């Protein structure tokens, strides 16, 4: 939450050190912003709150969303207050949530690492070592995103089966790498392009080899961009469902989204338990996103900054 309180996301052309655009908005603006923010946030917040309820409280109306232990008397607000419990979390943990969580962590981290290993040199080359047809190559990468996963899932299933990649984390890692590679290359290329030409030319005059130029001079300069790319790649990998549900059938390699799916089919609809599971499923990436929001803003938009 620390990061969230920092003022505006800055990008290189900003003029005011504050980063803020106006001296201060009228009170009505602040109220409007807070109201909109709370409405947008409410569904996510309500999922988390419901995870701390008993099943009976979960379906009570008016909706209870203020967790306060004990039964304090807060007048009109009493109808929205509930006494939080960790009962559902114990339940969810006892259904074997942890292995799914570990699989998700391995799949997202590993695929993100491979994405960076492949994308950094490629993006560097596309930005600064132009070759013939570089635009076609870039367009090819982007165009692989135009293909809906559903379009290739059957052949993929058959290929995976023959290659013994079904029901393995390695299989998911391969798919998540392919899924995030195009956007990573695109984002990183924009960052490399932002590096002033003088610095690169100076390094080359100094006789820096290509790898020194890339690793010692450029990578530190585009560090925030690499971080943003990694965050985005992790978010998409962590949340991915379609490849997981079709390519993994056993629990050996199943990820958190599959736990959610298995949970509702085997448990029926118990809202509080479901919400506790959801909360555990979304927490890592939501927190990661909160911390990295400044880099995300910058990173996603680099393709549009002149």
């Amino acid at each position, binding site marked *: 939450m620390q990061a969230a309180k920092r003022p505006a996301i800055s990008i290189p*052309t900003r003029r005011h050190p504050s980063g803020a655009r106006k001296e*201060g908005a009228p009170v009505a603006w602040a109220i409007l912003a807070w109201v909109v923010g709370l409405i947008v*946030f409410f569904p996510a917040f309500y999922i988390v709150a419901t995870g701390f309820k008993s099943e009976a409280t979960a379906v009570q109306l008016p909706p209870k969303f203020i967790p306060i232990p004990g039964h304090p008397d807060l007048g009109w607000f009493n109808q929205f207050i509930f006494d939080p419990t960790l009962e559902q979390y114990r339940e969810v943990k006892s259904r074997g949530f942890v292995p799914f969580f570990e699989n998700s962590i391995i799949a997202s981290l590993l695929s993100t690492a491979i994405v960076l290993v492949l994308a950094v040199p490629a993006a560097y080359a596309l930005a600064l070592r*132009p070759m013939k047809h570089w635009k076609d190559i870039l367009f090819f990468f982007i165009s692989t995103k*135009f293909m809906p996963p559903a379009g290739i899932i059957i052949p993929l299933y058959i290929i995976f089966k023959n290659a013994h990649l079904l029901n393995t984390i390695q299989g998911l890692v391969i798919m998540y790498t392919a899924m995030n590679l195009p956007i990573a290359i695109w984002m990183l290329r924009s960052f490399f392009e932002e590096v002033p030409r003088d610095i690169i030319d100076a390094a080359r005059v100094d006789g820096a080899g290509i790898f020194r130029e890339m690793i010692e001079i450029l990578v530190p300069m585009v560090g925030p961009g690499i971080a943003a790319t990694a965050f985005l790649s992790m978010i998409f990998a962590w949340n991915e469902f379609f490849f997981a549900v*079709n390519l993994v059938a056993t629990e050996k390699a199943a990820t958190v989204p599959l736990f959610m799916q298995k949970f509702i089919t085997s448990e029926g609809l118990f809202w509080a338990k479901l919400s506790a599971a959801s909360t555990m499923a979304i927490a890592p990436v939501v927190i990661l996103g909160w911390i990295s929001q400044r880099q995300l803003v910058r990173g996603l938009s680099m393709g549009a900054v002149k």
Partner: protein
Amino acid sequence: MAVAKEDIAGAHSGVAPVTHAHEYGSIGRWLVAPALIFAIVVTQVPFVYTLYYSTFRYNLLRPERRKFVGLENYRRILTDDVVFRDALVNTFLFTFAAVIISLLLGLFYAELVNHRFPGRGIVRTMLITPFLVMPVAGALGWKNMMMDPDFGVINWLIRAVQPGSGSWNPVWLAHYPRQSIVIMLVWRWAPFMMLILLAGMQSIDEEVREAARVDGASPVQEFIGITLPHLYRFMQLGALLGTVYIVQEVDQIFMTTQGGPGTLTTNLPYYVYETAIRGSQVGRGAAIGVVVVILTIIAMTVLLRLLDRMLRSSYAGG
């Protein structure tokens, strides 16, 4: 296609990067090669298989009856497949509605937090959150805790504010399935648009703004005259990325409506899934997949061109 390529790769880079190409010769190619080979192997090989399977009648449950049928699968999809047509319409509706509304709402969110007020960072954090929530978990939350006709928050609110008998109590996913899907999509993607537009807003030259204010521009004039024209490339980027992801959206449909009632919320990706995986009809599913890929590429190209023309003409000189 050429336009798309220009937009994605070239237009913003200004100067064509040709410096020193001769010095290092083919090094660039070697650096791109690993990523390129990986992408070709993992995405193009299955696609070639998809093309191959699309020419067969091939039911996984009766593999012995597999038979080459040429373009028959395509003919049937394009001429007498009612569900395909519904799915096509739904995909277009969902994508079009969700991208446009998300862009507008994202613009609104971004403008909200682009001003200084107490707790601005917290509000921005709250606004970003839906994009981070796992779609599967978010969809379950919306379907149950928000949209349930009896115990959901939305209908509780509707009943509470309704005067008189309070008889309007919609079953969202049955009575308004398409709208419900769009609501969930917009909830998730508007924050994504905000992320993109916010950086755009903050890259505006403050001196230009000040000059406008000195000239007596109202906040609305300032927004229309300076902010919007500056944002056009960012909006284009948002529309492009949003379309790529929303066209393929299948998680929410999978977890909420399963394509129903009837085929009202069946989009193309879900239809491929239903045909190929649930229905075991590999050949037909593959053919639909190929058609989807072609349509997506056409749509992206047209969209980019349209957007470009639209925005350029309305903000000429911006």
